């Protein structure tokens, strides 16, 4: 399956994606990709603009053992159950709520996510181009957090903006 990776343009062409380790990375430390190119471009314009330019890389990802919470009903309900279970345990045993990133990092650290290569996840885009109908955002913004880099093939620069 084809995915897109956005980075700031630093006059270097990447051979592989950069792992996101930021605190606001929803699904923990992983290689993040966009399902739709327009989301990748919007991300570049809006958030990867420190150098004034951004790059979009296109890649194929072998979609094996990906927890697909977007299109797979069974995976989605499994995912919700595990996140809520983890959140309850954290609150009960530590007295504080974890973030989604912390839960995912915890699963990674404890070897749980060894069983999967990544998670497909969605939220709602802020891209005004997506708002083609009044009052309701109907389009999903889909991201892949890939934990296993070996599933990436043909990673290459597609576009500089």
């Amino acid at each position, binding site marked *: 399956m084809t995915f897109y990776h956005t980075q700031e343009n630093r006059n270097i062409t990447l051979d592989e994606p950069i792992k996101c380790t930021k605190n606001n990375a929803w699904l923990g430390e992983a290689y993040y990709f966009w399902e739709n190119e327009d989301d990748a471009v919007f991300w570049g314009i809006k958030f990867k603009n420190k150098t004034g330019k951004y790059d979009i890389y296109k890649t194929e990802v072998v979609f094996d053992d990906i927890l697909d919470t977007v299109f797979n009903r069974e995976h989605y309900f*499994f995912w919700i159950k*595990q996140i809520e279970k983890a959140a309850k345990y954290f609150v009960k*045993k*530590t007295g504080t709520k974890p973030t989604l990133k912390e839960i995912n990092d*915890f699963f990674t650290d404890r070897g749980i996510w060894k069983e999967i290569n990544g998670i497909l996840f969605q939220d709602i885009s802020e891209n005004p181009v997506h708002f083609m109908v009044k009052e309701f955002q109907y389009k999903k913004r889909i991201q892949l957090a890939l934990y296993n880099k070996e599933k990436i093939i043909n990673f290459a620069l597609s576009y500089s903006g």
Partner: protein
Amino acid sequence: MIDLNKLNKKIDKLFESETSDSLTKWLLNKRFGNISILLGNGKFVSMKSQKTPLFIPKKKVNFNQKDDNSSNTPPINRLAA
């Protein structure tokens, strides 16, 4: 293909084996680095602020009360005088 049942059991087992200390230590290290070396182990405690009787003035201050030097002269001129 992901075996969801197997994964579910693995996660259940994981949380059964985690103690309050191990989870708190992991979370503290994640949020603040290896801070548990300084703080030791323990739970997060929600602190409530409490008034101490030592610093509560017995007499309430009345900011509307006129002082003895009150006059029609603005305070800045009174100081100069």
